């Protein structure tokens, strides 16, 4: 128990320390800050894994803790297995982003990047640890501010414009979320999760109330904007394309999931059993998959294709949430983890291409397999994982979501989700054909493979993809032994 207490407190203390260090450190020592923050991110990954093992051995399902400076203060944070998985993703994606930023961030912006990254990590850690809707909203705001400024760190004109679009959409999301929260508070008098789940939100008189439905719609719409689901996805491609690649890694890898999908999961815990809500989430999920994939087929910029691919994958997570039940929950969490890994791999490949070739327009690239073998192979494996080719990890999470949908009687949606994954394969085939697999044009003959931290990031993430894919039987057996399945 002591170990668990220390581990959980560390999840809050580590990013706070990082923030303080980064705000006090001198410009000349910024590399030291880089190493420190990387160490912290790696430590968060390790702590999350250790926490999962502790949870398994102690056989508990959640753990509340707080910072008891005065006496008799309620426990403000709660640690759950789902939170630990999210903390693992947060640590992993932040680590990748740091590895990429080491090469791609201009030197005079590195310290700003580090400070905002620490703030972002605090925001994300906070979201997965709190047990109150309003506090969750507060931490979503932190994420909104930090990511908005992170998008605009390289002050290009399009960067500022897309950051502004993101800010406007984010404010819209905040307004909807806050109004919805206000209505819920008006009706129930408390915003704590346990209280809201306990008062049985699906009783008949409650669900007939128009105000209740309005509050649910507002909250879900606000969170859908943050997720980047259709029809609220318009900010996503611009933000990913014009931000520096390390920021794109963060955005796609964890921000849209911590602030969006995970919060949707917590919120649907409260009122998710309403059939109308589950049906609408499922329909939106399928539409998101289709629209994201169709748009991705026509893009010419590497990062834009990846951004629309993220939109498409969010659709799968929405389907997993709408399926409900334990299988849908596990499928969605696994898909969050898998998506973090393979999308980060792809964005790291984009960073590698940008570093070496200085362009990301796929019409100008071609046949780089020979010149950049590691980038090409890692992008190939990431693509196969996204498209859901077994035995890589992406297939298993999709399979779980499809089975969960089938069991929840959403058979048409399951079939549609399966058939639509061919579009994922299609746009990635186009990407591979135009960038890596082909004849090398004259002006690209002398390109060298990228070295250093970016290469390390690519290889590390690919190993994780393959390991989780091949080791999926072990994951299943572990889940069964813990009594979850």
């Amino acid at each position, binding site marked *: 128990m002591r170990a668990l207490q220390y581990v959980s407190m560390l999840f809050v203390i580590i990013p706070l320390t990082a923030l303080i260090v980064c705000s006090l450190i001198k410009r000349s020592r910024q590399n030291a800050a880089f190493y420190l923050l990387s160490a912290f991110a790696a430590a968060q990954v390790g702590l999350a894994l250790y926490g999962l093992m502790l949870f398994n051995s102690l056989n508990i399902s959640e753990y509340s803790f707080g910072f008891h400076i005065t006496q008799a203060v309620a426990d403000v944070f709660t640690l759950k297995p789902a939170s630990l998985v999210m903390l693992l993703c947060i640590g992993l994606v932040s680590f990748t982003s740091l590895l990429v930023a080491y090469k791609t961030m201009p030197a005079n912006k590195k310290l700003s990047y580090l400070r905002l990254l620490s703030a972002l990590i605090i925001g994300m850690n906070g979201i997965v640890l709190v047990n109150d809707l309003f506090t969750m909203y507060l931490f979503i705001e932190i994420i909104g501010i930090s990511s908005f400024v992170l998008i605009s760190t390289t002050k290009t004109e399009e960067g500022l414009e897309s950051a502004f679009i993101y800010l406007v959409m984010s404010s819209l999301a905040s307004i909807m979320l806050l109004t919805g929260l206000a209505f819920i508070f008006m009706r129930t008098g408390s915003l704590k999760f346990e209280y809201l789940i306990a008062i049985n939100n699906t009783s008949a008189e409650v669900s007939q109330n128009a105000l209740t439905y309005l509050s649910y719609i507002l909250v879900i719409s606000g969170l859908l904007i943050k997720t980047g689901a259709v029809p609220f996805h318009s900010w996503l491609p611009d933000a990913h394309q014009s931000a520096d690649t390390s920021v794109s890694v963060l955005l796609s890898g964890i921000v849209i999931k911590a602030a969006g999908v995970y919060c949707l999961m917590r919120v649907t815990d409260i009122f998710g059993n309403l059939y109308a809500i589950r049906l609408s989430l499922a329909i939106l999920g399928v539409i998101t998959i289709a629209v994201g994939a169709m748009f991705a087929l026509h893009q010419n910029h590497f990062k834009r294709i990846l951004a629309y691919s993220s939109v498409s994958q969010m659709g799968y997570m929405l389907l997993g949430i709408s399926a409900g039940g334990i*299988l849908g929950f596990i499928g969605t969490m696994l898909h969050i983890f898998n998506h973090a890994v393979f999308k980060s791999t792809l964005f790291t490949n984009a960073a590698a291409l940008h570093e070496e070739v200085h362009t990301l327009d796929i019409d100008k690239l071609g*046949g780089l397999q*020979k010149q950049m073998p590691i980038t090409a192979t890692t992008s190939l494996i990431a693509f*196969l994982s996204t*498209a859901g*080719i*077994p*035995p890589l990890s992406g*297939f298993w999470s999709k*399979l*779980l979501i*499809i*089975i969960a949908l*089938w*069991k929840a009687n959403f058979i048409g949606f*399951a*079939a549609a989700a*399966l*058939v639509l*994954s*061919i579009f994922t*394969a*299609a746009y990635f*085939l*186009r990407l591979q*054909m135009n960038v890596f*697999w*082909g*004849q090398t044009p004259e002006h690209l003959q002398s390109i060298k493979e990228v070295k250093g931290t970016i290469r390390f990031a690519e290889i590390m993430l690919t190993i994780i993809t393959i390991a989780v894919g091949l080791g999926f*039987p072990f994951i*299943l*057996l572990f*889940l*069964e032994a813990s009594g979850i*399945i």
Partner: protein
Amino acid sequence: MKEILMLAAICVPLLGAFLIPIFGKAITKLRNALALIFVLTALLCSILLLPYAVADNDAVIHIYLPLGLSIGFHADALAVFMAITSTLVSSVIVLYSFGYIKDYPNQNEYYLMICLFIGAMMGLVYSSNLILLYMFWEITSFCSWRLIGFYRDRTALIRANKAFITTVLGALIMLIGFIGIYAETGTFDLSVIKGYTLPSWIVAVILVGILTKSATFPLHNWLPDAGVAPSPVTSLLHAAVLVKIGLYAYVRLFVVELNIDKVFETIVPVIAAVSALLSAGAALKATDIKRVIAYSTISQIAFILLGLSCGVEVGLAGGLLYILAHSIAKGGLFLCAGIVEHALHTKDMSKMGGLIKTMPVTAISCLFCALSVMGIPPFGGFFAKFLVIDEIVSAGQITLGIIFIIGAIMTVLYLARMFSLVFLGEEKAKAHEGTKVMLASVIILAVLSLFMGILINLPTELVKMVGGLQ
């Protein structure tokens, strides 16, 4: 002991494929030899499993997993038969590749993909769990994608993408059927659900996947276009192994393990008959040598499907025998076409002619293989076709029998046309014989076609056992 043999048959090519680039960077001859050794190991282990399967002492591996999944492998007569067929032809093709590929770049990837493909094929025929089947199915799609686009020019890449998308789409639709089976029975494990009757919609959906993989009309477009691949690749994928996956799945799922509605015994033969006749017609008109052979493949596969699906037990045996005969003979045909193409650098038959004078060995091997495909005794193809036609007619399906005979006549016609255009007549271009290794491969296959006919009772015994598995 038998379990170890089965595991070796699957894992040696599958995992050994990843060792190949490592050796390839060091010594190329060692890498080539290693590739051949891996495939031969699979062949040897499958042959050694034969006595166990015949004696009804099948090798079984079964590791239980939650959610109806499992890691299950089962070496029954059907699996061993398909394994031996595939690895036999594949080892000859690997041998042929030594001579064909040696001047092209990206050889490491080529041998990796070939070994991975054969490993996946082994996994597929031995697996006894639907999701495992699907997994190896997709791995073969991936390998064939990389192999079809081997030459890396734009046309090849586009055709490779098309093949990938068609087969993967079919597989995804088939997965819907598998999940339907899971929803009905609660498991993906074939050993548990043996004898279960499938609802018709699941059969229809799984059939879509099978038809795309075995290139049956109307989902056959990817096969002739995939002729842009190197000849050993075309031989491996489109004659010997890849197209047989669909047929194997049909036998495994619908004949041996599960029951399907009787109506499919009418529908599937009709689809197969249409496909057979249409592609035979296209073969008569094509001018690209590989396209002729590709359309011929579509046609012959349709015939095999006809035999397998008409619900007659000896038809099943005939179909399986024809899988063996066709793999050997069609593989040989593609390899001969490869020798011609390697020498003349063209695939257009109007530019060829009279090659029998300068390439006698190739011509005779091509003749043997063509005679086997046409179904002329004493080659193997004849016995297989005869079994199928005989049983179809005595089972009362006269129309199907007539269609079969018409198709057989068309087969003779277009293959004879091809042979005469390429090897007979006046010489249009100078050519030389292929290298010794390439010639050795086609000779092996030609001789095997002949011997299969002479020693026909050996495979027939094995194939009759498959019928007993129902």
